[in-house]
């Protein structure tokens, strides 16, 4: 087993263990911190795959944005030291059963699917993944350009921003 394979398995264990702790932890604040570790591990996985730009975006948006937003909303809505009420035992049992069965089914299907190549990436053929190339293709209007989804996403972000302000704005008691 080569060193990079060892790195991959260590990263996988980190991601899965912290994700499992994030969904089972009894304290909501700890849950958010475990989610932070899991997302950082996924960024490490992108680095390992050679996708530096995606890893940077993952760290900036998820770790720096979404988790901080979640932690803020935890502070706004509840006492972070208090334990969450434990879920009903039957619900835990059936959910775990459903998740395990779904996982097994998907693994069986994955084993049967013939992937097109020898499943070993050929790194002599790696594309130009520099930020410059990504930016040019993202804003290109020619073939394989992604300018239309880019504009749609920017409109979506604008709509989400205005929607958030409208939703979270405090109405005066007499307004309603």
């Amino acid at each position, binding site marked *: 087993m080569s060193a*990079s394979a060892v790195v991959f398995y260590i990263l996988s264990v980190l991601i899965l263990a912290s994700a499992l702790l994030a969904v089972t932890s009894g304290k909501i604040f700890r849950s958010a911190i475990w989610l932070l570790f899991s997302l950082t591990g996924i960024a490490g996985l992108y680095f390992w795959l*050679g996708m530096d730009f995606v890893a940077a975006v993952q760290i900036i948006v998820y770790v720096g944005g979404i988790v901080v937003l979640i932690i803020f909303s935890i502070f706004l*809505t509840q006492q972070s030291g208090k334990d969450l*009420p434990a879920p009903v035992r039957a619900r835990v049992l059936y959910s775990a059963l459903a*998740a395990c069965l779904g996982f097994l089914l998907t693994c069986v299907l994955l084993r049967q699917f013939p992937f097109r190549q020898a*499943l070993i990436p050929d790194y002599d053929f790696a594309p130009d993944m520099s930020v410059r190339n990504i930016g040019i293709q993202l804003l290109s209007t020619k073939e394989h350009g992604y300018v239309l989804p880019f504009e749609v996403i920017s409109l979506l*972000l604008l709509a*989400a921003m205005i929607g958030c302000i409208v*939703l979270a704005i405090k109405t005066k008691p007499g307004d309603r």
Partner: protein
Amino acid sequence: MNHVPLIHILILSTALFFIGMYGLLTRRNMITMLMSVELILNSVNINFVAFNVYLYPQKLTGIFFTLFIIAIAAAEAAVAIAIIINLYRNFHSIDVEAADEMKF
């Protein structure tokens, strides 16, 4: 990097997806359910990036899909948290079982 087959990365993302699914099914707190949704979206992102690197290394399609999914996830998290804060203001709880009426 060359000695890890694609199937192991796919199994990792499947496991992450079903961990998120388990959290979504068991938790009844809206913020923790939102965290589970983030885990699920991340597992999909891992799939896109892995397929791009392993099966179509000459293209950048997986990167763009991942970037768009991350942008949508950010918008979704912001809107969800605005809704959660609004619900907390009206019900003084963010348990999904407490929010049982739509008009008040």
